[in-house]
């Protein structure tokens, strides 16, 4: 095991604990937005895709990189937009309560 790998493992394990701590508090009402919001975060792999694409490989590696970038972008953009759409529904109600269809 290299020092670099141990460092990366440390980061991983600590982040898992932080994740458990902060997410245990999310109420059931917000489970779907939590899932789709965290799903958008998993689109962080877009950073990996950018690294691969910017390196300018040729041939197969090039197209794999472009495909990865497109997929990750769908995940990031779609994930954040749809989460925001859902969350706005959770907060907009008090204002729009009166006066709509009766």
């Amino acid at each position: 095991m290299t020092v670099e790998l141990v460092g990366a493992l440390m980061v991983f394990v600590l982040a898992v604990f932080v994740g458990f701590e902060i997410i245990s508090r999310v109420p059931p009402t917000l489970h779907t937005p939590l899932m789709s919001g965290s799903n958008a975060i998993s689109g962080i792999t877009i950073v990996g895709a950018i690294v691969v694409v910017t390196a300018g490989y040729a041939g197969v590696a090039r197209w794999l990189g472009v495909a990865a970038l497109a997929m990750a972008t769908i995940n990031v953009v779609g994930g954040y937009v749809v989460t925001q759409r859902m969350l706005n529904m959770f907060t907009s109600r008090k204002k729009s309560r009166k006066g709509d269809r009766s």
Partner: protein
Amino acid sequence: MISTASLQLSYLVAAVLFIMGLRQLSSPRTAPKGNATSAVGMLIAVAATLLAFHIVKPVDFLIGVGAGTLIGGVLALRIQMTAMPQLVALFNGLGGVASSLVVLAELTRPKAAALAGSSLVAGGLGILIGNITLMGSLVAFGKLQGVIPTGAIRSRTLPWVNLMLLLASLAFSGALIGAPDNPVIVLSLVGLSLVLGVTGVMSIGGADMPVMIAFLNALSGLAASATGFALHNEVLIVAGSLVGASGVILTNIMCKGMNRSLGNVMFAGVGIADGAGGVVAPGGGIVKQASPEEAALMLTESELVIVVPGYGLAVAQAQHTVRQLADELEKKGVEVVYAMHPVAGRMPGHMNVLLAEADVDYEKLKDLDEVNPMFPQADTVLVVGANDVVNPVARTDTSSPIFGMPILDADKAGSCIVLKRSMRPGFSGIDNPLYTNDRTMMVFGDAKDTLVELVARVKQS
């Protein structure tokens, strides 16, 4: 161009913003800000990466980001709220496959042989987990969309097939160390993991979908983490593990909601036609049918009405009509609350999102523990398209496949109105004695049509 140190610092800022964003998701009031915070973190991570690396082929970058933004944006803005489980499944799958493709691009590039052993194993895991996430999510998508049969499959061989596929995939991940650019090894790994994604999720029935969706969510995060290990990229590791942790917590909550273990959900389909005990034979009890007039009368004469929404509400897209009915009842002085079961619907929090779309105040949504003591005081319970979550055999019949699952005690209320399409049992295939209970009235038909009629009747009365 920015230095490596600046890049790392930007990643640190991004990771902190992700954590803060997730934290703010714990209350409906701060949640929209939380999502925006997390999006800013993502933007910083992307911008810093672009500044740190010299872009050799800008066209490639524009194609990828352009196509992704367009497709993702259109999907997210156009999707109906009732189709949300499918969309979440799809996005999960795409995140997973993106991680897998990043590793594959690394492996197929020139000088891939120079990669360190630990990077290769991590990369192999990235491909494995990413591909399982992709195919699993696509199968889940198909089942939710109704393109693939939603029933559970019980098989004694399938779990062993899955185990073999998993072990073989792990072996090929390890074999990458010796020969990272060997196409046979790479393609075998890709092929086996894609098959495993299909066989792993294929056997899972519709009612178990909330567990599966949450589990796939965890996997999409772990795939990103594994890719982070392969590329030595800390922000991928941190963000991926946060998502992994969140997915694991949700999976756990969903499993508890059904009193089953994850292994049980994955390997033992519930309620296959082998007549597993605890069923009331069709016609074994007398079903009382009510007209919408009678139901409306019962509702208006109640002091407390508890609405139990289930997947049928989503199918009928009746969330707005339910709220109208509640509004009309409230005008007549009836108190209306909603009983939320953790696994009602097809994904964690599914019913909450639908009711939020219909502008139902979230303070009226009561959790299992909060609402169960209220049932004995409720005059009328209105069950809209829910089945297994109100099935009393889960409390009483030890031989039932759903025995021990926490349920909503709808049978303890003064009376119960069940809106249902037909007497067909729910996805678990188990008959529900609530329907033949003395105090239960069934109103058959499309939930939305019935509700529209109820609204009209209540208004008149």
